[in-house]
């Protein structure tokens, strides 16, 4: 029983950063902006979070710093693509490159320094209930944030007027503009929300997952988050499912290896990617519904006066 609980806990830790970054990117893409800079914002959040935590000794300040750094860094992308109408794909890619390089430079003095770890939630009494205690009441705070965030985004996008407006901008920015909606302002806020989420995901890496700073420590997780959004056809609950399927197969294959099943490890290593794609494609197989969910003006630059 213990091992099952441990495995579930490990899966949650592995899935959390993917989920947070993907939920953020989902909102960005729903507003019609494609930001390929998730990896860069994530790593900046990781170094910012580690640095602030390390210097102040408080992981909470670290986590807050990760969010702020992520949001500020995404502002760069917003100014370029929204105010200056640069190509979103190219700008997003350069944001990733810049983030990876810049974080390495900022983090030089943090290399080899043990950081601070965000403590797990521990509610006296409740956390010690067998099995469910640890799963429900004993995880790291970011896990709860990630679940709350998913629910909040789901509610915001589909149950609020502002969410509806945001989605309409993503579908047709010219129509929205004609209706007098401030397209650029909405998109600025969406991009910064995405940046804050990516930063938080990075903070999770350097303050919870592996409390340390090393260059490139995000190791491609930003790209996985990006792919999750597309394969989940821009639906929050599918992103949640995708992140957890990925996490489960990711952890499962490590256990399978440790258990000694005779399957080549290279195949097992590729399994999380395969499984996630297959499952999400199956859930999204209804072509019409998928078309409906795809933000139609995704990636297109918009200049209000044109």
């Amino acid at each position, binding site marked *: 029983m213990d091992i099952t609980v441990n495995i579930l806990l490990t899966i949650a*830790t592995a899935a959390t950063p993917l989920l947070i970054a993907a939920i953020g990117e989902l909102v960005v893409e729903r507003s019609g902006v494609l930001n390929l800079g998730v990896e860069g914002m994530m790593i900046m959040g990781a170094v910012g979070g580690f640095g602030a935590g390390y210097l102040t000794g408080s992981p909470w300040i670290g986590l807050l710093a990760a969010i702020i750094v992520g949001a500020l860094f995404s502002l760069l992308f917003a100014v370029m693509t929204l105010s200056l109408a640069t190509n979103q794909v190219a700008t997003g890619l350069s944001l990733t490159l810049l983030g990876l390089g810049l974080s390495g430079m900022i*983090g030089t003095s943090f*290399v080899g320094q043990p950081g601070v770890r965000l403590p797990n939630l521990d509610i006296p009494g409740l956390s010690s209930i067998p099995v469910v205690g640890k799963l429900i009441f004993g995880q790291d705070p970011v896990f709860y944030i990630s679940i709350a965030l998913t629910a909040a985004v789901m509610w915001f996008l589909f149950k609020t007027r502002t969410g509806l407006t945001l989605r309409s901008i993503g579908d047709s920015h010219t129509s929205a503009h004609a209706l007098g909606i401030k397209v650029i302002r909405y998109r600025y806020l969406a991009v910064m929300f995405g940046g804050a989420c990516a930063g938080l995901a990075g903070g999770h890496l350097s303050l919870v997952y592996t409390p340390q700073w090393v*260059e490139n*420590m995000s190791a491609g997780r930003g*790209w996985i988050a990006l792919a999750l959004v597309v394969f989940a056809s821009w639906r929050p609950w599918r992103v949640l499912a995708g992140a957890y399927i990925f996490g489960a197969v990711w952890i499962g294959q490590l256990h399978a290896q440790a*258990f000694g099943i005779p399957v080549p490890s290279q195949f097992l*290593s590729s399994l999380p990617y395969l499984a996630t794609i297959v499952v999400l494609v199956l859930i999204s197989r209804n072509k019409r519904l998928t078309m409906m969910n795809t933000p139609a003006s995704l990636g297109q630059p918009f200049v209000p006066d044109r």
Partner: protein
Amino acid sequence: MKKLLIALMTTAAALSLAASAEAAGKLKACWVYTGPIGDFGYSYQHDQGRLEVEKALGDKVETAYLENVSEGPDADRAFERLAREKCKIIFGTSFGFMDAEVKVAKKFPKVMFEHATGFKTGGNLGIYNARFYEGRYVLGQIAAKESKKGLAGYIVSFPIPEVVMGINSFILGAQSVNPDFKVKIVWVNSWFDPGKEADAAKALFDQGADIIVQHTDSTAALQVAEERKLHGFGQSSDMIKFAPNAQLTSLTDEWGPYYISRVQAALDGTWKPDNVWLGIKDGAVKLAPFTNMPDDVKAMAEATSKKIAGGWNPFTGPVSKQDGSPWLKDGEVADDGTLLGMNFYVKGIDDKLPQ
């Protein structure tokens, strides 16, 4: 997508190098790393070696490096760029750079090339390596003494001879103390992914291992050991700060002395392509101070290190292969060629070697 990014980054890094080149009369020594120098592991240690060269040879040399160079076609361009930028001696520090270096070395016969951990040489291409397996034998002995369950978890990157050799040496060391010692192996198919290494460590601990060994570069696995109040071994650098109660020792690489001697030789004009394999006795493989263990285990580890420094090879018979067929006869010592091409397990390992 990541490959593309790394390619772009390599190019960008190489371009920025051009500016700092060209200093009059100095010998330019260059390094190519596969990871970031901030990995606090393998590439970090090579870069420490580079810094030692700068310190020791002062204004007679100028150094430069390219980091994050992926193994494969990108590496060709990295080496060629450095050669064109007047690097006189170039060190390629990863196994996967082998073919790239062979190719580029032929193109630039006046440049001196050195390749770490490979097996191909040329008229201007030497190879150097460290006998990490010597240290891993000692780790095996410590693990067998310290593990209460007689089971270690081993996190590994790719099934190349270097890694397989390490696993074999580890288990031979462990069996010399406890013949029934077992090891569970997890391949993470990456040299560097802290999150995945941590997950692998958790999986191995969850399945009953109480000691963790790694042949990957980050401190993540040791941090998991620290959290779970279990033990493990560091890799490449001394990682004691990350796991003050968990690290038993760390298998560290000290490339500085070798790099200094080779760059000095290049300065003196006496450089020749060489084929060296440095071990504990040369100081290239070092074990960090033995900690968190009783004195008798410490004494045993020290005695074994001394024995190996004295010339004893951990791959001394009798040793059988995994399937039980004899490999080394009693007293027979494995030759370096076999070790460098090692693609089989010795007896006592349950894992199936990925081919």
